[in-house]
């Protein structure tokens, strides 16, 4: 007996969560079918919408760049309304934990390498560190953490011409860990405010940094200032230092990405979305051009899930929503058409940051976000796609990754929900 819902969303990342929330708004009974942990854990936690388009950028207004995007871009399918709908769902889901919703403009945020980038929404903990605000900045790195070199990052900011003076220092973390301690260990020590010689971790860290502070009006750390009690950690450090404290977003392991994932799943729970996680969708049954059931591999046992409408949000090459071998690129669950050059040497360019075809790989959506076959017709009447599995955007170079997921998720989810509850 198949487990039955109105809308089945396959995937566990930002696009899948958005699609599920969007479908739930229509009153449909929604199930999210997630496999493993999503690419949110590798991402910085920033929500980019559009930073570069048509050779222009960084764009202060992401909407101003929409027209300049190449043909076949998913933003052309969902339109500006779709982008706004995605952001609305996001803003409602995360509440005060994210900032940037007060304006249409992008913010410029520094990243852990020191380069600034345009982004539309940023965690509350990142807000005091915007590069598009003034106020001299002290960056603090830790000797044992190789990903973030505060003096280099500060000099990098200076090279970008930021409207303030940045300075970086490297200090010892007050509690001595083994050299390969994970950032989660640092965060936990701050969360629990563990004891160290002559005090606790938070106070000792504040003392160390206070000695380095030389008139700067804000202090930044790599994003590891606590996990469950992060607000408390930041508040205490700010209080002791007398200036706002902020976090610098990082690559993997990304606590900010992890927290965003938690928030989105909490929002799903709140919205009554049912969640089945841990097993992959591997197959399907279709009839009369409609997907009837999706088959989940429950530890090598096929388990059917059925729904009226299905949203495919399994991710791109990184999220494994797309697969490839030496000859071809495929979408492994439904076998949707994924156009790609025949010669695999044309999948990438010789320049590392070139206009790579692989970056735009994905299914080709029709105007209702249904993946289409080579003939341009939708594969299935009730299958839509959202997020990384949709082709046509080089979200890395455009700085549009979360935006494309939010927008396509919002539109695909709403259409699916409306169809299912019609």
């Amino acid at each position, binding site marked *: 007996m198949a487990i039955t819902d109105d809308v089945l969303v396959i995937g566990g990342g930002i696009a899948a969560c958005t699609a599920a929330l969007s479908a739930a708004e229509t009153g449909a009974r929604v199930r999210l079918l997630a496999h*493993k942990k999503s690419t949110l854990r590798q991402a910085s936690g920033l929500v980019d919408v559009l930073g570069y388009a048509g050779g222009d950028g960084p764009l202060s207004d992401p909407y101003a760049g929409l027209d300049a995007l190449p043909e076949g871009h998913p933003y052309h399918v969902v339109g500006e309304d779709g982008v706004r709908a995605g952001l609305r769902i996001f803003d409602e889901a995360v509440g005060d934990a994210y900032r940037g919703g007060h304006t249409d403009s992008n913010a410029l945020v520094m990243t852990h390498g020191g380069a600034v980038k345009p982004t539309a929404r940023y965690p509350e903990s990142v807000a005091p560190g915007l590069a598009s605000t003034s106020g001299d900045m002290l960056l603090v790195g830790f000797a044992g953490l190789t990903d973030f070199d505060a003096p280099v990052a500060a000099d990098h900011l200076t090279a970008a011409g930021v409207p303030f003076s940045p300075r970086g220092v490297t200090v010892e973390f007050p509690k001595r860990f083994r050299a390969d301690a*994970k950032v989660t260990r640092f965060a*936990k020590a701050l969360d629990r405010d563990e004891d160290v010689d002559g005090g606790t971790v938070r106070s000792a860290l504040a003392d160390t940094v206070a000695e380095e502070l030389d008139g700067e009006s804000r202090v930044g750390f790599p994003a590891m200032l606590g996990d469950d009690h992060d607000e408390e950690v930041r508040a205490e450090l700010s209080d002791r230092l007398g200036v706002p404290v902020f976090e610098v977003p990082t690559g993997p392991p990304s606590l900010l990405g992890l927290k965003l994932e938690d928030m989105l799943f909490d929002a799903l729970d709140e919205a009554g979305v049912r969640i*089945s996680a841990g097993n992959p969708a591997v197959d399907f049954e279709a009839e009369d051009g409609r997907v009837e059931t999706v088959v989940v591999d429950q530890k090598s046992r096929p388990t059917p899930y059925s729904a009226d409408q299905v949203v495919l949000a399994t991710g791109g090459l990184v999220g494994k929503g797309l697969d490839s071998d030496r000859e071809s690129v495929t979408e492994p669950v439904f076998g949707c058409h994924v156009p790609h050059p025949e010669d695999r040497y044309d999948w990438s360019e010789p320049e590392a940051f070139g206009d790579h075809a692989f970056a735009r790989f994905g299914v080709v959506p029709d105007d209702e976000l249904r993946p289409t076959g080579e003939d341009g017709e939708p594969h299935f009447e009730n299958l839509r796609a959202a997020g990384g599995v949709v082709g046509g955007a080089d979200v890395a170079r455009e700085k549009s990754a979360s935006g494309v997921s939010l927008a396509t998720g919002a539109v695909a989810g709403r259409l699916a929900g409306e169809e299912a509850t019609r």
Partner: protein
Amino acid sequence: MSDAESPGNPTLTPDAQTDDFEAVEVFPDSTDMDLRPGADNCYKCTACDVSCPVAEVDDEFPGPKFQGPEQWRLKRKEDEAVDDSIMSCSNCMRCDDACPSGVPLSQMHNTARGEYVDEEMDKLSREYIRNRILANYGTLAQLGSMFPRLANAVMGNSVVQRINEKVLGITAERDFPEFATQTFREWWNERGGPQVRSEEKRVAYFHGCYSNYNTPEVGKAMVRLFESFGYEVVVPKQRCSGTPMFANGMLDDAKRAAGINVENFAGLIPEGYDIIASCTSCSMSLRQEYPELFDIDGIEDLSAHTYEALEYLRIHEDLESEVREASVEDQSFAYHAPCHGRNQGLDRQAVELFRQLDGVDIEDVGDSCSGISGTYGWKEEKYDKSMQIGADMFDHMEHAQGDVGMTECPTCSMQMEHGTGYDIKHPLQLLEEALV
């Protein structure tokens, strides 16, 4: 467009979900397997590391990415030394659940741990003897259950507890689980075995050690519930599922137990029986670890026919409708999903189901690990870490409305009780109350 026109429609095979490789036994007659090719799937996203509850509180443990794909990839065949930090892994298997790329992390950990214990651990050391005892809880429990009242009195004696800690390194902070005065199997025999016979609906119950010796009411609930749905339940002879043995690198012990379990259960499959476990670690072991670690005739078949009890009813019965029509006296639960249940995709099913049960308020206390991980939290040197890991769960339980805990895992349940003082129920017990 018809189904048939869809290209690349994959067939469902055991390795459809990952680019699995076939690990080979490098040396015949040993458990040493070459898992280096498993590192091919790793793309360094570190999702596993941020999911590791041990690395969060213990910097001696370098995290699953290092212990798994990195250590294996760095290995040369003649290298004997596995890093001793492998013994700090609690075997919660959350890394398996995190990895988006199909790296066989827990298999790598289990195999490395087995190798470490075999080749590097002093067999006369206190740690080895203690781990061997903990890993073979079933044997200990069997003895205890012969004279349950005496055993309970002795194990609850603070002098004995202190001796356990000093001599064996078993923490004195925890109360030893009480042995039931009548084991599940004694009850089963007393009632004369199955009360329902069926040709079509047949299940074989894998009760595991804990439901047998300590919480027979869970086993009884399982039997009554399944019988109420018309299932013929049988209870074959069985040994420990192996979970605590894997966690302590005692792969030879685990293999012996697995041999008996496979023999006694796999033979029932052709007769139409599916295998049901009420403990999520037992079902995890039979489903995933058995075929990953051992090559025993019938082991794949057993794996493919093993289910967790609630999961089975959800798939095979219209459980949701039944529950929607039922009601119980008002009660609120703080539910914790055990990590091993999470790994099988079962972490949300109890909450989803009981939210529809009239009279019940149930809240998921979050996705943190309880911290006990079977035998991990029983070790004197790990006790504090175990409680630090569990702190989030205790915290969320106390903030939840419910004042009764709920979980499928017996050791999580010990930890929940130890950390909050709450009574803990198994979902089967509530389901029995609602439906039987």
